[in-house]
């Protein structure tokens, strides 16, 4: 049919240009070195990012910084001069000292607008501002968005950080869908003007913005708004009122200063609340309660434990009958000043005895993620509760708090192993993956309560990522013919085999052992201290398995082999953090 295979080895420049445009700007520039043809291809990228940070290292002496800034400005000018691409999709400009580089900014923006840019990002923040979570309102924006930008109507998304704009001028942004504002004083009328004048606006994000006088009171109905993000803003408001019936995503990260909360959005899908910046509680309970009531329709709700101190997860579960994904992120602070529980709950028994079977747990809950797990008893109880009660739970991830001491983590891991019901994954619907980060919850002695193969036979993969696991126990019921264990372990690993369970056929150990690591295999033919010579000791173990070299078995090999043999497979994949993760 006239097609030669050779056609594949040759891609037209237009397609290469499409690929280059999908790369980050830095990566795109790197392709110039491939060949002479690519010098031009890389210039055709439609995704341009001029970022001072690429050039300037701020810890250098002032002279060097000056020279680096000049290099940045020269590069930028040269690129603009040589650019023969007729269209630019995305243009991003990041620099410090915008008041000095006014000309350069003008040049960049006129260039971008003349090429029909759709996604425009302007960021004049200083890198160190990032670290400041509280007093960012001293960083007053030095410049304003140049006037001619307002006349341009082609922008679809706009990001302005530390660059003021005049809200009343924003009348031509007819295609604007997303706007993200940061590091600026933001008045309510400006927000309203944006929402009124940009008919297509769907997403509104604020990052470290501030104002002191207005309430966040959007009484008018905004049908278009689908996503609202308020991240670390010093809005000194007491009222949060949003009338956006089509709002789907709502994120709030900051202080709990809200006293009247009114969100009329029946279609909410994802809500993320984070009050970890809060340092005390002054009777917020009632307002939080109201807040949560309004969020009842959400399907995905992320909260920090600040909230939980007031309500408990139980309350929240009760309020959100459609909840499918639940992420609990433990904050650092454990007890807030002045906090007194509104009703007494015995933490030791609540989840075991008192907790009801909420509708969302019974029917809808599919995924639970717990981050920053510390290993307290109550945490175990909560995990137990979900594992046992949530009938449609497909995925559960537990991440142990990373920066705790090794000993603490070990203790937490051990405690988790003692949890009696974790292995009772009941409910026939459960399948596919039980995914457990930073720890695994299959303990030594719980084998007895491990359900019969009908339940776990469907469990094709168990993936465990961890730098905290010390014990890897592998158990299977009779009749399971095949297990592969894939371990990346900087720590000691304990693999135990019981009589009556089938032969462990594949085990992969890829590890750089921790100095005091101890490696034990019990129940197999040998019991060895493995870190002395892992390869030799393990070869016997892997001999049965085809194509093994250096004791490394890749998980997909096991899966492939199992498929070929047409046998049911349970694959435990334990991915400890790689050794280099600790060297940083």
């Amino acid at each position: 049919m006239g097609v030669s295979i050779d056609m594949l080895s040759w891609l037209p420049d237009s397609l290469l240009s499409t690929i280059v445009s999908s790369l980050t700007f830095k990566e795109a520039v790197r392709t110039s070195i491939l060949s002479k043809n690519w010098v031009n291809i890389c210039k055709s990228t439609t995704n341009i990012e001029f970022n001072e940070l690429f050039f300037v290292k701020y810890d250098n002496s002032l002279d060097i910084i000056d020279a680096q800034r000049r290099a940045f400005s020269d590069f930028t000018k040269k690129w603009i001069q040589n650019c023969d691409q007729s269209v630019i999709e995305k243009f991003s400009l990041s620099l410090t000292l915008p008041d000095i580089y006014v000309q350069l900014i003008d040049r960049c923006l006129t260039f971008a607008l003349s090429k029909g840019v759709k996604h425009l990002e302007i960021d004049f923040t200083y890198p160190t501002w990032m670290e400041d979570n509280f007093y960012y309102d001293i960083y007053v924006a030095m410049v304003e968005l140049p006037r001619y930008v307002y006349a341009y109507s082609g922008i679809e998304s706009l990001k302005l950080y530390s660059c003021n704009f005049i809200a009343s001028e924003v009348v031509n942004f007819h295609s604007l869908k997303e706007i993200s504002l940061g590091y600026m004083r933001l008045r309510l009328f400006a927000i309203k003007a944006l929402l009124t004048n940009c008919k297509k606006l769907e997403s509104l994000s604020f990052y470290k913005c501030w104002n002191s006088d207005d309430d966040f009171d959007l009484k008018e109905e905004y049908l278009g708004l689908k996503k609202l993000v308020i991240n670390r803003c010093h809005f000194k408001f007491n009222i949060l009122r949003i009338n956006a019936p089509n709002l789907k995503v709502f994120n709030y990260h900051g202080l709990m200063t809200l006293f009247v909360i009114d969100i009329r959005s029946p279609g909410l899908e994802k809500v993320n609340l984070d009050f970890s910046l809060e340092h005390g509680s002054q009777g917020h309970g009632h307002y939080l309660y109201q807040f949560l009531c309004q969020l009842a329709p959400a399907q995905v709700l992320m909260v920090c434990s600040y909230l939980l101190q007031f309500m408990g997860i139980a309350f929240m579960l009760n309020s959100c009958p459609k909840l499918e994904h639940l992420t609990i992120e433990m904050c650092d602070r454990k007890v807030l000043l002045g906090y007194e529980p509104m009703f007494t709950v015995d933490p030791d028994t609540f989840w075991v005895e008192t907790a009801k079977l909420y509708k969302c747990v019974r029917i809808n809950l599919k995924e639970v993620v717990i981050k920053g797990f510390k290993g307290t008893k109550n945490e175990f109880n909560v995990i137990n509760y979900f594992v046992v009660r949530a009938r449609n739970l497909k995925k559960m991830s537990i991440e142990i708090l990373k920066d705790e001491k090794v000993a603490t983590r070990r203790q937490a891991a051990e405690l988790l192993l003692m949890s009696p019901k974790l292995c009772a994954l009941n409910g026939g619907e459960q399948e596919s993956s039980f995914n457990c980060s930073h720890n695994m919850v299959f303990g030594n002695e719980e084998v007895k309560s491990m359900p019969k193969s009908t339940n776990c036979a469907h469990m094709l993969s168990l993936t465990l990522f961890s730098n905290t696991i010390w014990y890897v126990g592998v158990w299977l019921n009779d009749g399971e013919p095949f297990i592969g264990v894939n371990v990346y372990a900087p720590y000691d690993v304990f693999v135990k085999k019981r009589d009556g369970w089938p032969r462990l056929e594949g085990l992969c150990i890829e590890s750089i052992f921790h100095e005091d690591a101890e490696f034990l295999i019990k129940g197999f033919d040998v019991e060895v201290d493995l870190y002395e010579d892992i390869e030799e000791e393990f070869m016997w173990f892997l001999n049965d398995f085809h194509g093994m070299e250096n004791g490394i078995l890749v998980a997909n090999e096991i899966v492939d082999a199992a498929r070929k043999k047409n046998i049911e497979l349970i694959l435990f994949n334990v991915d400890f953090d790689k050794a280099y993760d600790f060297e940083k």
Partner: protein
Amino acid sequence: MAAEKSSIKIITLIAADGSVFEVEPNIVKEMKTVQSYIDELDQNTVSIPLPNVFGNDLAMIIEYCKKHASEEETKEAKEEFDFEFVKRMKSDDKLRLLQAASYLNMESFLQFMAKAIAAEIENQSVEFVRDYFQIESDFTPEEEAELRKENEWAFK
């Protein structure tokens, strides 16, 4: 005219190697090249030769289109599908599918493949990328060193 068009039930696509695919009209909506064919013809069954696309590739493209045209699938399910779709492909496949997408004039699939390829060459060595696209360097070592120096910041 509109009524006639909607009466088309099945569209037959013939790949370069002669393999034949029968698909519903909504599957080919994204393929502008095919669509313009259909718009020109007023027949109940349409058979369209695609001499620049191999059967294997066409099968994959149709699979992708089916998933994405389906209204029952959730956004998450589609994302997961995309992830798996890319995962099982070799680099050659990606380059071939990119070309096929370009030939069939499928805007979003083209971007999708370009992104997949970009992800593969990102953060890779110059040698890797040359190998990937089968490029012979026509720079002298001095020229290459100069280029590197010129764009020093990008190579840090």
